[in-house]
């Protein structure tokens, strides 16, 4: 396994938070030098969940970056999923909770990062039980939420209505549970769930998923759950998914039912080249690449992927190459986010109540 330190300089800073971190996201900055992050905390001492906007000073006088809290919003329940839409100067946040509500927050980064709750859906019947995942449409006014209760809801927020309206796209009545969701285009999105299954949805074809990627493709081996999905804007035909047993795979919708396994179950590789054997909590396409142009990479090749896992690995996987390990922590890395504007910056949340900020150069 390749280690990052030997190949390219990597600076890692761990910042203890004294609170559990449920999710962390970068916010798109107002100016190129600014860095803001949205962090969903859970204070175990007082039992209070909250979301905070923090200014990340990458290089203060002391050599490690500092986090300066700008504003805070108290959540009625712990955050199960947090997404941001990259619009400036008022980035939007969508936060889903374990009690089954959804909150749209707006943060004004110019005026001190003040965060306001724009709208809330918490009606009975929106979701029964926790919302397992939510995704905000890029720059848009819609988000989609899914749960293990088998409901797929579309929430649109236009104007300043404080009560959101939602539309039930599908309800499997619990027969199928969904654990991950990601927009692909203004009308299409993908969901993931048990048995490594992925569903492809198109709002123009209502009544159910338009395509299903069969779960249980790793017959006979342990099956698992998809925890995270990513879709690259230039490769909409491919869904990238990460889940149990260190599994990272891609599903090319054009290639029917055969997954492209990048890591973990079903690779048939020698066990020592396995990156991780535990849960892959999040996957994202890694936009930071030393290659000149992603256009040069053939369209059948999967773009570089960053993953984080329960056994403390943060790594970049490229198809057919040795994975590049960026972090190997003694505790789980529960979530991470790559800065859109400056993909060399990565922020991740560690199980032991701390954040890590990585700068690649």
């Amino acid at each position, binding site marked *: 396994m390749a280690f990052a330190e030997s190949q390219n300089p990597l600076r890692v800073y761990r910042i*203890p938070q*004294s*609170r*559990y971190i449920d999710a962390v996201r970068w916010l798109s900055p107002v100016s190129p030098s600014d860095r803001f992050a949205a962090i969903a905390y859970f204070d*175990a*001492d007082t039992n209070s969940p909250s979301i905070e906007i923090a200014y990340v000073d990458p290089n203060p006088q002391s050599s490690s970056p500092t986090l300066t809290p700008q504003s805070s919003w108290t959540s009625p329940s712990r955050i199960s999923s947090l997404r941001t839409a990259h619009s400036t100067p008022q980035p939007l946040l969508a936060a889903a909770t*374990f009690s089954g509500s959804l909150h749209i927050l707006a943060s004004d980064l110019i005026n001190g990062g003040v965060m306001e709750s724009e709208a809330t859906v918490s009606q009975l019947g929106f979701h*029964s*039980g*926790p919302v*397992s995942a939510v995704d905000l449409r890029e720059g848009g006014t819609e988000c989609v939420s899914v749960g*293990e*209760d*088998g409901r797929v809801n579309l929430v649109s927020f236009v104007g300043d209505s404080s009560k959101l309206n939602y539309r039930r796209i*599908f*309800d*499997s*009545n*619990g*027969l*199928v*549970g969904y*654990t991950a969701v990601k927009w692909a285009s203004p009308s299409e999105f993908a969901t993931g*769930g*048990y*048995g490594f*299954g992925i*569903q492809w949805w198109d709002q123009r074809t209502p*009544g*159910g*998923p338009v395509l*299903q990627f*069969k*779960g*249980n493709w790793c*017959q*006979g081996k*342990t*099956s698992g*759950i998809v925890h995270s999905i990513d879709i690259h804007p230039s490769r909409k035909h491919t869904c990238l998914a990460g889940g*149990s047993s260190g599994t990272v795979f891609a599903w090319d919708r054009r290639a029917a039912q055969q997954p492209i396994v990048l890591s973990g179950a079903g690779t048939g590789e020698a066990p020592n080249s396995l990156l991780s*054997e*535990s*849960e892959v*909590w999040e996957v994202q396409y890694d936009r930071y690449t030393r290659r000149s142009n992603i256009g040069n990479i053939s369209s059948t090749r999967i773009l570089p992927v960053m993953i984080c896992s*329960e*056994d403390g690995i943060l790594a970049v996987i490229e198809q057919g190459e040795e994975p590049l390990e960026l972090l190997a922590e*003694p*505790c*789980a890395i*529960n979530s991470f986010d790559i800065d859109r504007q400056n993909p060399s910056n990565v922020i991740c949340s560690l*199980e*032991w*109540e701390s954040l890590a900020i990585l700068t690649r150069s």
Partner: protein
Amino acid sequence: MPGVSSDSARGALVPLSPESPGAVVYPLRHGLKSPISRLSISWSRGNSLRVSVFAAPSSNGSVNDGDGGKVVEVKLGGGDGEISEAHWRRIAYGSVSPFALLQSRKNAVSSLSKMSMNSSPYDGDWWDYIMEYCKDINALLVNQKSASVPVLDDTKSVITKGEEPTSLKAAWELLEMFYAEKPSHSWLPERLVDWLADYDSLFSGTHPTVHSKLVDFQKEFVNLQVVEDDPKYWEVMSSALAVGWLNIVVKMLRLHGSYQLDQLSNRETENGLVEAVAVLISKMPRMRLEQEAGKLGECYKAKPDFVKAWEKWRGQINKLDSSAFWFQCAHQQTREGLRSMLQIMLGNANSLCSATYNWIELYISHFLYMRPLTVGLESMYSLAQKSIQLKPMASAHRLMGLIIGILGENTEVVLAECLKGFGPWMVAHAIELLTAGSDHAEMLLHEDRQNLGGISIEELHRLVYAQVLSSFPLTWQIAPIYLISCMKHGMILLQILLSKQPVQDNQLLLKSIEICRLYELHSVTSNIMKIAGVHHWKHGRKGSGVFWLQQARDEYRLNRIALQLFDSVGKTISDESFKQWEGLIQLLGSDSKTAGGLEFLHKYRDFKKSLRQIHDGKATDPARQAVESLISLMKNPSTPQRFWLPLLYDSLKLLNWKERPLLNVSQTNLLLNKLQELSMARLRPDFIESELPPQALNSVRLALGTNLGRAILEE
């Protein structure tokens, strides 16, 4: 161990006297108006109690606002004042890696020593490992909140503040110097001098200290015009000199009025005396390995060199003490102050005693000026006893108890003081140091004891610490590291811990399963999965429930829930709801072993699918497929009886296929037999009637009969 009192016969382990200082009253704020009828108390997370208060139902039967009950949490104990809960957790997280590393090295060393009998297990790199462990833990104990920077003019500030010291760090450093730094035993007195310089302020809360006197003086100091007229100036300097804070003393001496340019001429002798004392102080010989840069005093590593320098230095002091210049010094305070400082340097017992404020300071001053060559814990211990006699104290600080225990070479006392003063974390981690170099301590702590249920003291304390970690939702995940280092009870407690974790949230559930995987606790994994499966199933998340039960390979429960699923299948598998079922059926897969009784659903789906394709009644190929599915469904023992009639009724158009009979004679016979069996079963009281039109049975029978006739003709 707390003494088992005489009333242990009555079941009390620790006697509770009414005037025991441990009794604390916690007020409950439940806000109930009506009288309380019942209380229920249980443990919540950590050291919180959950108290459920039930109000008495109001007598007149009306429902009021304050009726019912309340659940309140009561946090016991204020915790450790100097270390916040969050900091404790940070220490707990940080100590996992050093502890685990040391354990694995220990195992490697002991397995190595088993192979080669002649070499001692603990040599070579062993002390490096212990030292590394010690330093890693020490680094965690640094207090995050740094003390405020003094706003005083730097030339006038005599004490500089760094990070605020904590008793925990002070205690750890004591253990470090006595148990981990083996080779430096002859420099122990000097290490204690440094230790007191860092941590003297910790005693200020309960006892007067040199540090607190210095802080008090510094406050007044700013307003003083002529510093040498103030008796406190001399007092504080003598005290600081007595505990060896040479830099502070020299700095203070140089603030003496005689140094000022306008006074230099008429106070020449006085200034000369002050400077002479300052120079003597800064030349004090010290027996130690190295000196921090900028610190005053001269270091000697070897004893003969030191003794020579020490004699010479004392000679110089004596010479100055008896010099004639003192008579020429007009300033009385200066004369007396300086000469009393000389007495301290000469080791005058009375001067040392009056310059120090508690026994530890006196003890340190004895090392510095009276017995710098003290070696060995025994003589250090007797000196400490003597100091305590000279300066007895009503109450002992927790660090003082620890020092006495260490010097007395009493491992049990050290452990008890660690537990009492610093809690289970300290004991669990300090044991590694206590056993590092002492065979006696190792035997004592590793020996299995009958009165502890057959485990050793070491294991007991690790279990206690793991128990503390387990009771908090954020730290339970690190408890396994400590549990698996316990040979006797660790594994079973780990299984209990994992089995008790909540299963509602997938993320937490998967974290538990990951720990099971690491320690190969497969039976616990499948138990957790079963619990999770049933939980999800009960809450209507059928897909999740089936998934977890499949993962656990729990055929019994899968078959049970299959029966429930069939009930809803009979009603809802219509063409519209097909998409809902599609996902679940896909999840079931074709592997019938993991699907249990749900295998039927899979075949039923295939059958329905092919039926749907022949709606026009012409396509023969799909129709043949449908017949095959039907036959295999009817043959399969997992197909519930109550589905037989609906299946056959659904297949009417297959049975009445226009072109030619689709079923051959034996197939038709099979179906007819099933129909007969069904008619018999209808007579039984527990038969479930399907929701089909009443003539369904007859129309199926007719169709089968017709088909049989046609099939016989064809053959």
